[in-house]
């Protein structure tokens, strides 16, 4: 049983926590938070270079790319076509097949457009990408993404950046029971450590988060909390919890009381 390691498309990463690199108060805080998180994979966005000025220190200087794999995303893309274009640019810039595929269907909630997501997944898988699609908790869609060749499915458990934590344990549990052959990585909605522990306890293979860490008052400390919570949740999943009971069961022996 390998508690800490997560295998995606045949490659094994020494952490089940994937962290985003956006919205940190500073590059230095980002660097230290990423390090404390123990993440072996971090997401990055693909954006136009700023023609105006000399680019000063860049995010990539803050990441030890020997230790940490880059997972480019297609954040902000509203159509399959845009997502595919962005993925191709990401591969060229990062020299890696990994892509976190996002096709956004609603600007207010950033919920996925599963139809566009499936279409883009099919195209990119054909082109040899390792596709990690951001989706919701619809197991019918998850199965199709898997059948289309996705390397993992990444369901949200609450809106991106909402910090609400797992909203629907039933659908997540059913999805986890359905998707056994590729990793299920919870993406979006985690606000605090226990949120991450809960989904890992249910059997998620990993967790991806950004705002929950970057937006905390002390991102470095929260990064460490998340690292421990993911490991705790995984260990608890493996350890096999006690059944829930409505009534009490004494933990001290009944016999031998003084009278």
């Amino acid at each position, binding site marked *: 049983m390998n508690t800490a390691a997560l295998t995606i498309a045949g490659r094994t990463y020494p952490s089940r926590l994937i962290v*985003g*690199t*956006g*919205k*940190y108060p500073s590059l230095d805080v*980002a660097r230290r938070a990423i390090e404390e998180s123990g993440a072996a994979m971090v*997401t*990055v*966005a*693909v*954006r*136009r*270079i700023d*023609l105006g000025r*000399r*680019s000063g220190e*860049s*995010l*990539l200087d803050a990441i030890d790319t020997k230790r940490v794999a*880059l997972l*480019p*995303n297609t*954040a902000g893309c509203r159509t399959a076509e845009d997502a595919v*274009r962005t993925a*191709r*640019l*990401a*591969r*060229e*810039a*990062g020299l890696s097949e990994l892509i976190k595929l996002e096709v956004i269907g609603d600007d207010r909630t950033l919920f996925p457009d599963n139809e566009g997501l499936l279409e883009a997944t099919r195209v990119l898988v054909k082109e040899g990408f390792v596709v990690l699609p951001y989706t919701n908790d619809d197991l019918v869609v998850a199965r199709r993404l898997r059948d289309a060749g996705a390397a993992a499915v990444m369901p949200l458990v609450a809106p*991106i*950046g909402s910090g609400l934590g797992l909203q629907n344990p039933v659908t997540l549990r059913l999805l986890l029971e359905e998707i056994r052959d590729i990793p299920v990585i919870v993406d979006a909605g985690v606000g605090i450590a226990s949120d991450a522990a809960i989904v890992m306890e249910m059997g998620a293979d990993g967790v991806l*988060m*950004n*705002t929950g860490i*970057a937006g905390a008052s002390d991102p470095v400390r929260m990064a460490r909390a998340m690292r421990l919570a993911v490991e705790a949740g995984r260990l608890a999943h493996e350890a096999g919890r006690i059944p829930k009971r409505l009534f009490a069961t004494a933990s001290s022996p009944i016999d031998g009381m003084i009278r």
Partner: protein
Amino acid sequence: MRIMVNGEPREARGGWTLLELLRAMGVEKDRIAVELNGRVVRARELDAVALKERDRVEIVRFVGGG
């Protein structure tokens, strides 16, 4: 010669390759990606592709994101 780079109009010398454009703009060619008229151009071909009037060029890099 008029082209569009990252959505902004720019002047480019006729016959310039993409690599020459990058140089002229002072853009390091590593860890970026270039798209010409909607198609990605592989790094090794940047010096083989010549620009034409009204070409649309996108030059991107990685930034922090979730």
